[in-house]
């Protein structure tokens, strides 16, 4: 098989005028360029969402602060949540999936390249629509509005009686538009994985990253569709006289909650499963061992996919469901912890007996493991619904899900950036800046989100723009805000690293990490057609087989 994994010489590219180059980026249907467009646009939205988070943290630095008005504060947390989930986390993960899945299965592009471009532009323009609400939210008369009903927009707060003007409409339309983009991408990923695998790549030989993205895409189809349906129902309520969620006319607020969370909880796994995927590629390479228990990892992922579709109402333990419903969702939520725990054990099993190299991607991966462990355990605490009657809607929950999203997802994403940046650009990210980034971010993260659990336990609800003095919340909130600024500095180091290394980073060959999956068999960056000859594989680690012909994996599988 070795003869099929060939190196393609990089073609001579002529310098084009920048307008022409920009035009090429706008009309591209290449999965790699679209992947990079997803990632870069998500980074722009990350900056916006980050600034909103800092405004929130300045306002909460001490009790009775007057940095912003309650109206502005409510807009900030609404925009922060909506931006980070829909226009940062999802698209950036789609970007990596777009870039990596075809390369890892030996395909030349996604199954539907034009649908791919369409999906990206829908997501991106959805984000612009959301931010246009700052100008158009009040119909342009009094510019300076934006949705302020929360990223969950609980009924009836999103109804016209309580949210007049157009700011909520921008929120609804932005989610609807980008939701269609997500559905398109999910269909594309599924079709690509099922139909375009290279010869020899049986479904049991796919890299775990590909497996996990397959499960993620399936979940996107099941989760985004009810959200889109709910958005359409909300529009009908707001403009066509419907009463689905209009409680003033007998509608149901609880119905909206079910619609939102049957999207909202699988969504968490839609975000974390691709991060499990990064871990399952990066940890083996830097431990110099294959993933421990490949079949069990696949089974655990599929199991999470199924079980996580039946846990949504654990977001609703306080709404007065009966005791049987509360018990059921307690059980399902705790059960999700089992396959998730198995994954953590398998990653430890992978490191066990290995020779761990502490490169920046591995540092972020180890950070992920520790933090995801804690995030999972606080999740178990809140799965116990009576405990959740106290913790829900408090800062404990905010700390918990930021532990998942920042401590888990963002750390995994940073690992992925440091790991695949050389493949995408042909240059290494600076290790020195990378270590600065890692340690600064780690310190800032723990300062903010470890401490944030405590005000929740002391009775501080979330979504409040100010709080009373004398409850023991002031000092804690001050520390939390300091941590937020340290994280912001770390992000600046990261962005500087991305930019400086693009021009000055050390040039790399095909395979800087001595890795084992197919994307490392082509040049960095890969040519537009990916593979000159479609490769044939005989095991889960085709490049291991190539490098160790005396002891190939294919003998054992």
């Amino acid at each position, binding site marked *: 098989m070795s003869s099929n994994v060939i190196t393609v010489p990089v073609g001579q590219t002529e310098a084009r005028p920048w307008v022409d180059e920009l035009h090429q980026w706008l009309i591209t249907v290449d999965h790699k360029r679209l992947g990079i467009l997803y990632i870069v646009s998500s980074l722009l939205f990350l900056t916006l969402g980050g600034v909103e988070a800092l405004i929130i943290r300045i306002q909460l630095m001490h009790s009775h602060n007057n940095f912003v008005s309650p109206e502005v504060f409510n807009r900030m947390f609404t925009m922060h949540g909506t931006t980070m989930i829909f226009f940062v986390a999802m698209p950036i993960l789609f970007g990596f999936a777009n870039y990596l899945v075809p390369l890892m299965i030996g395909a030349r592009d996604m199954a539907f390249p034009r649908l791919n471009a369409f999906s990206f532009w829908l997501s991106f323009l959805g984000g612009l629509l959301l931010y246009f609400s700052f100008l158009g939210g009040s119909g342009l008369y009094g510019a300076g509005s934006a949705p302020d009903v929360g990223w969950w927009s609980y009924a009836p*707060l999103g109804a016209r009686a309580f949210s007049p003007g157009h700011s909520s409409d921008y929120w609804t339309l932005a989610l609807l538009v980008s939701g269609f983009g997500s559905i398109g991408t999910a269909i594309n990923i599924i079709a690509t994985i099922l139909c375009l695998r290279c010869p020899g790549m049986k479904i049991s030989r796919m890299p775990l990253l590909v497996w996990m993205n397959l499960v993620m895409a399936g979940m996107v189809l099941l989760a985004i569709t009810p959200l889109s349906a709910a958005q359409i129902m909300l529009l009908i309520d707001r403009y066509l006289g419907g009463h689905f969620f209009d409680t003033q006319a007998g509608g149901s607020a609880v119905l909206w909650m079910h619609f939102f969370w049957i999207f909202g909880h699988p969504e968490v796994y839609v975000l974390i499963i691709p991060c499990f995927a990064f871990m399952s590629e990066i940890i083996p390479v830097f431990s110099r061992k294959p993933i421990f228990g490949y079949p069990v990892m696949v089974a655990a992922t599929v199991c999470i996919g199924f079980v996580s579709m039946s846990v949504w109402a654990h977001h609703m333990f*306080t709404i007065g469901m009966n005791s049987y419903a509360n018990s059921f969702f307690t059980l399902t939520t705790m059960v999700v912890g089992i396959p998730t725990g*198995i994954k953590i054990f398998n990653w430890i099993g992978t490191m066990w007996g290995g020779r761990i190299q502490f490169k920046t991607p591995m540092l972020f991966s180890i950070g992920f493991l520790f933090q995801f462990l804690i995030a999972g355990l606080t999740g178990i605490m809140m799965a116990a619904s*009576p405990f959740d009657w106290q913790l829900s809607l408090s800062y404990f929950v905010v700390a918990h899900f930021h532990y998942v999203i920042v401590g888990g997802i963002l750390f995994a994403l940073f690992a992925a950036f440091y790991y695949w940046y050389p493949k995408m650009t042909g240059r290494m990210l600076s290790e020195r800046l990378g270590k600065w980034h890692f340690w600064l971010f780690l310190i800032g993260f*723990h300062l903010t989100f*470890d401490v944030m659990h405590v005000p929740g336990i002391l009775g501080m609800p979330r979504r409040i723009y100010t709080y009373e003095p004398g409850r023991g919340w002031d000092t804690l909130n001050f520390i939390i805000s300091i941590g937020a600024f340290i994280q912001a500095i770390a992000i600046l180091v990261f962005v500087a690293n991305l930019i400086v290394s693009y021009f000055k980073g050390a040039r790399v060959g095909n395979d800087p990490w001595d890795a084992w999956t197919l994307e490392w068999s082509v040049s960095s960056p890969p040519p537009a057609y990916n593979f000159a000859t479609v490769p044939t594989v005989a095991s889960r680690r085709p490049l291991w087989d190539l490098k160790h012909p005396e002891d190939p994996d294919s003998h054992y599988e």
Partner: protein
Amino acid sequence: MTLRMKSSLDRGRQLALLLFWSARPLWAVEPGGSTAQSTSIFSPASTPAKSIADLSVFVLAITGIIFLVVFTLLLYSVVRFRGRAVDGGREPAQVYGSMQIELAWTIIPILIVVVLFLATARVILAVQDAPEPGGALDVIAIGHQYWWEFRYPKLGIVTANELHIPVSDPSHPTPTFLQLLSVDTDHSFWVPQLAGKTDLIPNHPNRMWMDPQRTGVFLGQCAQYCGTQHAKMLLRVSVDGPDDFSAWVRAQQKPGVEDASAVAGRRVFERNACINCHAVGGTPADGRFGPDLTHLMSRATIAAGAAKNTHDNLRLWIQNPSAIKPGSLMPAMKLSNPDLDAVVSYMETLR
């Protein structure tokens, strides 16, 4: 090497924090506040809050043990299996997995989940499905945008923002059962020391109960985002001894006090839009959009706890509510200074 040292130090801090949480019930008094001001979920003063706190300690202990075990394994493998220069670039033994080990770390978590679930289900049933005893007090709590209305149907009392309930002696329990309603958006009733929170949702009546076992004022606030002034929708629950509670009930059952000295203020109040929203018992004022003012001066705070109930605050609140609570639905009445003073004097007679 230094790198790894730092890493372990950092994890140690997390560990300390986790232990700190689990130890919290030992310190019922919070830093920065007296016991009465505490809103910690680990200083319970009533049965539902106590059962939850006990369950929480149990769950914290189990998750704490899991944390210690997995944390140690992780730390050990990171330190023990670090790459060394002496390896000389040789690859370690390639191990693909082990079914026995996989089975072990699947079955143990399943057993833990069974234990946790049973312990939890017991508390769910005990708190949620508790029958209402004969001596219980019924109160209807109604959420409004940024304030609480409390109605005592059997006692004929209507009040706002400050709930009075009797202390409950374990031998003769007199728990309070709240029916939770909302007239506008979603709210959530949360007084951490008395019970877990339950939402007030329009068209979806809920129920919760509490049996406080010591007297005092317990603080809480709206926990579900309900609009612009969600932050200043504060709650005070005054738990009174039997005699104090009866005295309070008798005082609240009286009609509004008629004080001849405040006739001018009453006239201003009744001629303006005040009475569209506010009620004063025994007078033409019967609005229900805002808090009932019949016994306004019996309350310690105004504006749902946003300000102390003083002469200056009352005056400021009537003159410009946004100064205390921007986004509140109370309009600025733009009264002339003499009218403003008269209305404030009238309010101060409503004992």
